[in-house]
């Protein structure tokens, strides 16, 4: 069996000045544990550039590539473009309907990322029907899933040994168990799960559901992990993903 590609992940760190110093000491030597660090959105609490600087200071300490998607909190102040620019300048790759690859000793890691959006799941799902506002809400959820699928399709040409889908909103409801069912449509989107199931993903990682649980599966059986920091209660988890060529 080939060596696994080691994927560290955390989400929902909600950084601001009051949490400065919480992560940097714990990820300075993360290369001993992982080949890349994925961050599943809600990097900041209020979505300000100042908070993004705290994130860049903390996660810039990692000695492996850091890949992130934004979360809903990162959009709140309307500064998301400035946040992306700052993070990219500071060496954090921000994915939004895009993908990237990282060559590791164990093979090529491909990551496609998107924030995602609400929609819901079987029995608790918004419908593309009625008022323009409802159609816009639903349509945006569907559009984000389509963009994730495009990013995953594009990634295939890069022939990754391991493919990871990174999002803020959840692609499945398995990992929402523990959250009130009434809010599940605001926490995830089954269309993200469909995109994952149809594009050869090995692992899906998301955040957003602070009261959910870590582990779940898509309908086709792809492992999904909710790495929201209040769920994993650690600076990060590491998933040792065995490349597909060993199957």
């Amino acid at each position, binding site marked *: 069996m080939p060596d696994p590609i080691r994927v560290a992940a955390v989400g929902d760190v909600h950084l601001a000045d009051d949490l400065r110093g919480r992560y940097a000491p714990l990820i300075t030597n993360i290369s001993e544990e992982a080949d890349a660090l994925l961050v599943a959105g809600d990097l900041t609490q*209020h979505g300000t550039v100042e908070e993004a600087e705290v994130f860049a200071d903390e996660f810039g300490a990692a000695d492996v590539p850091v890949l992130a998607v934004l979360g809903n909190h990162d959009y709140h102040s309307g500064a998301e473009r400035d946040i992306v620019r700052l993070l990219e300048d500071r060496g954090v790759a921000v994915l939004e309907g895009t993908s990237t690859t990282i060559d590791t000793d164990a093979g090529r890691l491909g990551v496609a990322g998107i924030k995602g959006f609400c929609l819901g799941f079987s029995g608790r799902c918004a419908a593309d029907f009625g008022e323009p506002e409802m159609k816009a809400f639903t349509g945006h959820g569907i559009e984000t899933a389509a963009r994730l699928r495009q990013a995953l399709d594009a990634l295939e040409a890069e022939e990754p040994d391991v493919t990871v889908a990174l999002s803020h909103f959840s692609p499945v409801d398995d990992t929402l168990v523990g959250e009130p069912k009434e809010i599940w449509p605001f926490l995830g989107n089954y269309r993200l799960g469909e995109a994952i199931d149809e594009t050869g993903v090995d692992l899906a990682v998301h955040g957003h559901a*602070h009261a959910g649980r870590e582990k779940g599966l898509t309908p086709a059986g792809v492992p999904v992990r909710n790495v929201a920091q209040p769920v994993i209660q650690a600076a990060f988890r590491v998933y040792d993903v065995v490349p597909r060529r060993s199957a």
Partner: protein
Amino acid sequence: MNEQQTRDLERAIATDPRTHELGIRLQVRGDHLVVSGEVASEARRAMVLEVIRDHDPGLDIVDYIVLSAEPGPGEPQHEQIDPPRR
């Protein structure tokens, strides 16, 4: 404080620029307003309570907010993910 006012105050905690905490739940129990949920720091707990007091709920505030577990040093947890059989 009636049910509607309680929900309005929950929304205020979610949207107030001092807090933006979306996971705080409020329940009225007799003369008490029970505040529960999880926040990342003591400063954020204090800010949630300040926003509640600013709305003057007229009830004794019971603080059941818990702090997120602060990540600390120690061996990171690894999980092996095997490839799908397809």
